[in-house]
C-alpha cells in the first residue's frame, strides 16, 4: 500500500490539503496534493487535470464574457493564454463571476506579449466600466429644487452624490470607436491617431449607455464623482475650460438625472 496521507485529525490538516489542491487547480505544483489522492485505477494527475481544466475553462469563459472586444482584438487563442496567466496570478475573490476581472486591464497593461497593442488595456478598462454599470441599479434622481433650501453661503460646499452606475473614463486612444467597430462583423478601418476620448458610462433602465463629453464637463463630473464639493469641481473644470459655466453644468446634471443626493461639507478644503 502506498504511503498514506496523514490523518486529517484537525482543521489545520484540512486547510493544508485545500491550499495544496488550490495551488494544483490554479496551475501550480501538483506533487504535494498528488500524494493525497487515491488513484482508483488512474494516474492521480489525470484526476486533478479534470478540476484544473474546469477552473481554467469556466473562469476563462467568464473573462471572455466581460471582455468580448479585448478577446476579438487579440483572437480567442491568445485571449485564452492571457486569461490563463491572469488567473494564475489573480484568481477571483468574489464568488459572483460578473465581478471578476477588476484588475484585468492593469494586468494587460503590464503583459509583455500585448505591448504592440498600446490601446488594449484601455479597451479592457472601458469594458470593465460597461460591466460594472450593468450590475448596479439606478437610484431615484434628486430634483434640482432640493438644493433650494441650501443657504447661499453654503452653496459652494455642496457635494453631490451621483448615480452609482456612473463612471468617467478618459483615454489617449479613440476607445469607443475601437470598441464599436469591433462589435461589427466587418471591422472598418480605424484611425488610431484620431485622438483620445472622454467618456461617461452609466446604466439607463436595462441598458448600459455611454457618450463622449467635452473636457470641461468631464473634469467637472469626474470631480463630483470623486466626492468634491461644487467649488472644487468648478475649479477643476475651469482649468480645462476657461469658459466653464457652473449654472448650465448643474442644470444638465439634474436634467440628466445624474445626482441622487447631496451633503454639505464645509470642512472640505476648496482650492482658491
Amino acid at each position: 500500500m502506498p504511503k498514506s496521507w496523514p490523518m486529517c485529525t484537525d482543521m489545520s490538516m484540512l486547510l493544508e490539503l485545500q491550499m495544496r489542491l488550490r495551488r494544483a487547480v490554479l496551475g501550480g505544483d501538483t506533487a504535494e496534493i498528488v500524494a493525497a489522492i487515491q488513484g482508483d485505477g488512474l494516474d492521480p494527475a489525470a484526476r486533478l487535470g479534470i478540476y484544473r481544466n474546469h477552473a481554467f475553462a469556466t473562469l476563462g469563459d467568464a473573462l471572455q464574457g466581460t471582455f468580448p472586444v479585448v478577446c476579438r482584438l487579440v483572437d480567442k487563442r491568445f485571449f485564452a493564454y492571457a486569461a490563463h496567466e491572469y488567473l494564475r496570478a489573480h484568481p477571483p475573490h468574489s464568488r459572483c463571476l460578473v465581478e471578476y476581472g477588476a484588475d484585468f486591464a492593469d494586468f494587460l497593461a503590464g503583459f509583455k506579449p500585448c505591448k504592440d497593442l498600446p490601446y488594449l488595456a484601455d479597451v479592457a478598462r472601458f469594458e470593465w466600466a460597461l460591466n460594472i454599470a450593468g450590475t448596479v441599479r439606478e437610484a431615484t434622481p434628486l430634483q434640482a429644487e432640493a438644493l433650494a433650501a441650501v443657504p447661499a453661503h453654503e452653496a459652494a460646499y455642496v457635494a453631490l452624490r451621483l448615480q452609482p452606475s456612473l463612471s468617467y473614463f478618459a483615454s489617449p486612444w479613440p476607445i469607443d470607436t475601437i470598441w464599436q467597430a469591433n462589435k461589427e462583423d466587418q471591422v472598418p478601418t480605424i484611425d488610431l491617431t484620431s485622438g483620445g476620448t472622454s467618456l461617461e458610462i452609466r446604466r439607463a433602465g436595462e441598458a448600459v449607455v455611454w457618450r463622449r463629453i467635452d473636457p470641461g464637463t468631464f473634469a467637472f463630473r469626474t470631480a463630483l464623482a470623486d466626492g468634491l464639493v461644487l467649488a472644487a469641481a468648478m475649479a477643476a473644470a475651469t482649468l480645462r475650460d476657461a469658459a466653464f459655466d457652473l449654472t448650465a453644468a448643474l442644470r444638465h446634471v439634474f436634467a440628466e438625472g445624474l445626482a441622487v443626493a447631496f451633503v454639505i461639507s464645509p470642512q472640505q478644503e476648496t482650492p482658491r
Partner: protein
Amino acid sequence: MTKCRPIPSCSVGIGLRSPHVSEIAATRPELAFLEVHAENYMAETPALDRLLALRSGYPVSLHGVALSLGSAEELDRGHLNRFKALIELLEPMLVSEHLAWSAIGGAYLNDLLPLPYTEASLDLFCRHVEEAQQALGCRLLIENPSTYLRYRHSPIPEAEFIAEVARQTGCGILCDVNNIHVSAWNFGFDPIAYLEALPIEAIGEIHLAGHHAAEDVDILIDDHGSRVAQPVWELYAAALRRFGPVPTLIEWDTNLPALEVLLDEAHHAEELAHVHGYVDAA
C-alpha cells in the same frame, strides 16, 4: 402502506437560463418551479429584474454554488449577507447548497471540490451548515456532488456522511441522481446502495442532468449539457420508489438547447414520478 400525499398536477421544474427567459415569460409553460443559481443574481443586473417579474408565475428555488460550506476556514460573511438579501427578495420555496468546497485563502475556484470524508471534516461541515442556516434564516438542502477524485484518507462513505450531516444539523438533502450515477461509475460503487443509505425523510429535492464520457480516460463528467441518460432515468425511478414524489429539477447549463427540449425532459420526469412515486413505500 400507500403514501397519502395527493398527486400534484406538476412537480417538476427546470433551471432558468437567460436565453429562455423571454419565451417562458411569453408562453408560461406548466412547470412546478424555476431554479436559479444564487450567485448569478447577487449583483443588481437586469437579469434580477426579469427574474422578479417571472416570480409572480412560478415559485423559485434558489441554488447556491459558492458558499463553500466545506472550506477549512470561516464562512464568507459578505457572501452570506448577499445570499440572505436575495432570499428576502425572492422568498424561494427551496434553498440549496453543496457538499463541497470552492474557495480557500481568498481565492474562489469556481468548482465544487471534494472533501475528504473524515470525522474532522464532518464536524466542520456540520458547523458551517448550522451557521449558514442560522444566518440565512432557513433550512438548507445539501446536494451530493459529482466527483472525479477521492482522497487516500477518507474513511466515511459519502452517503453516510451526508446522512449524518442531515441528522446533526436538521438540513435536508438534495439528491442529485445524475451525480450519484457519475460518481458510482467513476469509483465503482453501487448507486442503489447509495440511495438506500440516504434517510427518506431528509430528501427535499432531486436533480436530473446530463453528463458525458471523458475522451482519454474512463471517467464520466457531469456537465449539465445533454439529455438525461437512460441509466440516470432508471436510477431516478428507483429514487422515486424509495423517496416518493419529490420536487425534481431538470438542470441544463451548457450547450443549452431550445426550451422545448427542457420541457420535454421535464414531461418525462413527470411521467416517471406518476408511475414510480406513488407506489407502496419499500
